[in-house]
């Protein structure tokens, strides 16, 4: 990572201003010409450093107020197959394998969004039927305490 790249990342944090030429302001903050900024963002999108560039929504304001973290106990030799099936579900936005811990026997995590609890339950039931994995739980969000973008390269350190 070059100094210029770090300046660009810092300038992008907090999002684009709402103006006709938003990248111009970001470029000024980063101290680079706008062309260089645009080329760098495109290059990062191409190589996966930027996973996505766009509008981040508040899902509860956007008509998907219910969020359930589905956790699944999947035998090691069926993880691949389960992961692919769960990932194909439209209601699933994130799907990860994570370690089991203490008495928590679940090792596959699916983030499920819906308009109603029933939507999440239905999506989970469908994945269960498709995979034959029946040992799962849905952990509903009771409160959102924090949701922000990460701070990369904070200036005070």
């Amino acid at each position, binding site marked *: 990572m070059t100094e210029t790249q770090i300046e660009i990342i810092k300038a992008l944090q907090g999002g684009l201003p709402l103006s006709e030429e938003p990248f111009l302001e970001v470029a000024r903050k980063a101290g680079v010409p706008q062309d260089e900024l645009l080329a760098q963002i495109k290059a990062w999108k191409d190589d996966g450093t930027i996973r996505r560039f766009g509008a981040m929504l*508040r899902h509860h304001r956007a008509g998907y107020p219910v969020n359930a973290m589905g956790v699944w106990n999947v035998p090691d030799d069926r993880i691949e197959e389960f992961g692919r099936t769960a990932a194909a579900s439209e209601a699933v936005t994130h799907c990860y394998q994570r370690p089991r811990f203490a008495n928590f026997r679940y090792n596959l995590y699916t983030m499920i969004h819906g308009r109603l609890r029933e939507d999440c339950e239905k999506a989970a039931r469908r994945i269960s039927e498709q995979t034959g994995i029946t040992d799962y739980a849905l952990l509903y969000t009771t409160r959102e305490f924090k949701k922000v973008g990460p701070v990369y390269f904070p200036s005070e350190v």
Partner: protein
Amino acid sequence: MDDLDRRLLNIVQADFPIAARPYLVLGKRLGIAEGEALERMRALVESGVVREIGASFDARRLGHASTLVAAKVPPERLEEVANIVSSFQQVTHNYGRDHEYNLWFALVCRDAGEIERTLEEIKARTGVSDIHELPAERTFKLRVDFRF
């Protein structure tokens, strides 16, 4: 939110134009003027549907480490503990959930060492010790956009 807003949202979530005049590009795609595209975007931000327009980086590719953490907090202390957890800059997401492990939060740190130090500090400051670090071992899907 009308049909044009929905079309605008479908485009800008995954494919915000990386161009000097992005709203001109969006306007052309939607058949509206640059100014209207910008004003519709502004309204979506002001009404709270859109949190921000920006880049979602792959933390690992920036050399950073990230993890999910599960904590078992006495229910009567949930809010107090959650507020301490949220006060750490490294914490990006922090949710209460209806389970015996009732607080789930995500950390993005410069390296694995910073994750360890942050969790130790959280344990020390909250007195909560039943805390487990659950880094993703494999990612099958990561799609944060919604269809309208």
